């Protein structure tokens, strides 16, 4: 293995490989590492999942806190570690993803980098390929989505591409698994025999190339040690890359001066800043390679484009956006409620769940634990599975970028741009990955604003509370109304947050990918992966938590705590006395509110709460304080101070809105 072991002293922590993955190091065949790199949305993750199956581990890296997926593959006797890097367009240093990817490749030195490119937009993708080649890593080009390109009338000659780039090229259709075997064959080939394709030099225009070479030889003769190749450093210096400038300046200021001088020469010749010249020439290079290797036949207006015209239409576009978000929720409500009823009927027939407060300790705990299982099955499964199923389909189809496009101006009102809507919608699934996905935003300030909004987005757990309380015991429409109120609250608080965190907003620049018909196998697999991780965490907590709660309930110490909280719960919120304890446990996980009610009172909650109390309790559950997991992520990403402020803002909003709702809702019932 070796690769991951010799980097202990790096400032960036990439202790990526888990201990157990090293167990194979004494096997006869040497294990090796493959990193998947490329633009956003070219199918890297699909390839990753196809290769690694369900063996997926998600790694967290302290400090940089960037998540990247990592998994293992056993291929014809080889142990292969596969790393899925975030999707990026360039190795500039404007997003965390770009920095992390380039530092991973430079410091961690994977044995092979597979550059996944979208066959249907080859030129844009090759711009990144050129940069990867400059990093001088063992490279394989995986031309993915060949089917999509074909639909657009593009035919790609992979042999020509291979000759032009000087790296092995493998065409694939990853969603169907086509070409992946060949891809791995190629990877094994390289690790065993070294470079298998005749290398080709990718050179810039003569004025630029000449200066790159001069600077490269200066760097080579300076006996400075860099993790990056000299030519790459030279190019980045001429591009005036701030990070690399700093890095080189710390070791050798004259080198930086030299590069400034050379950059000026380029600028004099081209009448354009050197970074702009280099970007243009790099694109020209990508264009030349792409044009030489593909034939574009006459294009018909495809089905995807027709859909596009609807999804970005000035009227229909907004309707589509509303349908996507509203439809996702309504679908979850209706399907979820339906299955939840069936399942709870089945369970009450099988074993009526009733609270048990006397008897032996074991009996009490067992009863509690069983209640936890029932709550888990009747609440989580029916709602979460349909939700994730639909969310995955929406995510895979490409409709989200259209929604982001249409909602850009609305998002500007809360200091964000359209792309921020994507993490926000993901927040309806689970806040934790949604907060991680704010990495697609450009600045820390924007990530913080988006995260703040996300903590108010009712995740699946909060949905369960809303549904379990309001949809089941009041009406589906009141549940929908709560969501509408929630969106309004997000908007108002977003405006307020903007006042607190002033600063300039970054504008939207987003690639609009073609629509894709989601593949059933991919959708099912992703749905299962998401559901599974929730079940693994939630069920044990439910069962143990429920047993403990019942135990505490029976022991009689919950009463005094609830009474102490009565001024808040009873006076201000109009809830029963026992609500205090719901709120305390609800802070750990939102479903506990519902779970504890079921533990205490069985499934017929209508006998203990009025409709208004159901709504107030659901509102509080929806808004008050993020769950433990979310607070943990908040602290990790933004520090404890921001986490505390966000949690407090959540809490105050919840209590405020809850109290108001109690006062104005009564006449309706």
């Amino acid at each position, binding site marked *: 293995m070796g690769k991951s072991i010799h980097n202990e002293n790096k400032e960036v922590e990439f202790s990526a490989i888990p201990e157990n993955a090293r167990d194979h190091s004494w096997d006869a065949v040497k294990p090796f590492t493959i990193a998947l790199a490329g633009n956003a949305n070219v199918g890297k993750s699909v390839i990753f999942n196809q290769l690694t199956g369900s063996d997926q581990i998600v790694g967290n890296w302290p400090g940089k806190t960037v998540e990247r997926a990592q998994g293992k593959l056993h291929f014809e006797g080889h142990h292969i570690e596969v790393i899925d890097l975030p999707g990026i*367009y*360039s190795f*500039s240093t*404007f997003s965390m993803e770009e920095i992390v990817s380039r530092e991973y490749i430079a410091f961690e030195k994977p044995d092979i980098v597979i550059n996944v490119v979208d066959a249907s*937009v*080859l*030129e*844009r993708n090759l*711009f990144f390929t050129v940069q990867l080649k400059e990093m001088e890593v063992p490279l394989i080009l995986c031309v993915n989505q060949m089917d999509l390109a074909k639909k657009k009338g593009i035919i790609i000659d992979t042999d020509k591409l291979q000759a032009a780039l000087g790296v092995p090229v493998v065409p694939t259709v990853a969603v169907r698994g086509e070409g992946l075997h060949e891809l791995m064959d190629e990877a094994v080939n390289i690790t065993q025999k070294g470079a298998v394709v005749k290398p080709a030099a990718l050179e810039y225009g003569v004025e630029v190339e000449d200066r790159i070479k001069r600077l490269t030889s200066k760097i080579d003769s300076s006996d400075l040690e860099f993790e990056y190749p000299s030519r790459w450093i030279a190019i980045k210096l001429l591009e*005036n890359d701030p990070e690399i400038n700093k890095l080189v300046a710390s070791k050798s200021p004259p080198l930086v001066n030299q590069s400034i001088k050379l950059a000026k020469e380029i*600028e004099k010749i081209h*009448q*354009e*800043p050197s*970074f*702009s010249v280099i*970007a*243009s020439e790099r*694109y020209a290079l990508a*264009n030349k390679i*792409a044009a030489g290797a593909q034939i574009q036949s006459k294009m018909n207006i495809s089905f995807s484009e027709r859909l596009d015209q609807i999804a*970005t239409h*000035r009227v229909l*576009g907004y309707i589509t956006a509303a349908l996507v978000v509203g439809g996702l929720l309504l679908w979850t409500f209706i399907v979820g409620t339906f299955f939840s009823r069936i399942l709870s009927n089945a369970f009450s027939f099988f074993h009526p769940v009733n609270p048990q407060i006397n008897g032996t300790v074991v009996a009490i705990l067992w009863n509690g634990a069983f209640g936890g299982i029932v709550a888990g099955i009747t609440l989580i499964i029916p709602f979460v599975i349909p939700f994730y199923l639909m969310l995955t389909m929406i995510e895979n189809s490409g409709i989200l*970028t259209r929604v*982001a*496009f*249409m909602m*850009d*101006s*609305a998002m*500007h009102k809360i200091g964000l*741009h*359209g792309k921020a809507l994507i993490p926000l919608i993901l927040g309806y699934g689970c806040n934790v990955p949604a907060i991680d996905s704010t990495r697609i935003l*450009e600045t820390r300030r924007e990530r913080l604003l988006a995260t703040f909004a996300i903590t108010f987005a009712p995740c699946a757990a909060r949905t369960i509370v809303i549904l379990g309380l309001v949809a089941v015991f009041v009406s589906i429409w009141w549940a929908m109304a709560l969501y509408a109120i929630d969106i309004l609250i997000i908007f108002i608080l977003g405006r307020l947050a903007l006042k607190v965190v002033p600063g300039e*907003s970054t*504008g*939207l*620049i*987003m*690639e*609009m990918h073609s629509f894709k018909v989601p593949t059933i196998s991919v959708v099912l697999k992703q749905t299962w992966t998401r559901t599974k991780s929730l079940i693994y965490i939630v069920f044990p907590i439910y069962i143990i938590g429920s047993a403990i709660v019942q135990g505490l309930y029976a022991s009689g110490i919950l009463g005094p705590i609830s009474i102490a909280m009565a001024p808040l719960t009873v006076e201000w919120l109009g809830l029963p006395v026992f609500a205090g304890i719901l709120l305390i446990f609800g802070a750990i996980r939102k479903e506990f509110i519902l779970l504890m009610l079921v533990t205490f009172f069985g499934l017929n909650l209508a006998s203990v709460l009025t409709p208004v109390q159901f709504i107030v309790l659901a509102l509080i559950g929806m808004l008050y304080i993020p769950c433990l997991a979310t607070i943990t992520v908040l602290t990790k990403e933004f520090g404890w101070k921001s986490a505390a402020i966000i949690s407090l803002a959540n809490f105050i909003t919840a209590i405020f809105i809850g109290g108001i709702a109690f006062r104005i809702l009564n006449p309706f019932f």
Partner: protein
Amino acid sequence: MSDNEKISANIEEYLEAIYKLSSNGERVKNTKIAKTLNIAPGSVTQMLKRLDELGYADYSQYKGVKLTENGHKLAKKITRKHRLLERFLYDILKLKKTVIHDQACEMEHSLSDDAERALCQVLEHPDQCPDDSELIPECDLKFTNCDECMKRLNEEVEEVGKRNKNLISILNLKNHQKGKVSFIRGDYKVIRRLLDMGITIGAIISVIKIAPLSGPVEVAVRGSKLAIGRDIACNVFVDIDENKLV
């Protein structure tokens, strides 16, 4: 047309008004100009005839008026000076929004090109005027972006030279209209992001769609589609001269 030809402030005011009113590309009626400048329609007609004679505008009695290329250039220049001054009065001198317009009108006619450039730099290449959020036209200097302008401070406007082509922001392109990227306004970061996404100087770009409600612009560039927020799109200027779009 020589530079030393005297153009009265009055003419400039007219050009400015026509420039603003014809931003949709259509001819402007006399009555509209009269209303904007608060001048009797009779005198407006007289002045429009004079503009026609001077070669700044194309005027016909019933159809209204349209700027010629020369007139457009001049109108754009004076509009740029006006809007930059408004920003200066508002951002730096902290005057009230209600007074900046009239004040800028007074000052714009005497602002030199070097002062205009310096003002633009001090204000960090602003793109919108403060009172009505109208787009500030791009400068007419031979730069491809603002970073270059900042770096070549030692050269005066004379040395830099002027762009001889008329540029237009992609925000003002019609659907499916093409242009060649010629100037990007903004700081290094914005330019860098655009470059990385393929919007390089010289790239051919075409607008697919502009979202309603001040939404973003969808463009086609380098065989793929991008959504660009209005705040960035307004700073990407293209040359729409048909001959150069190869």
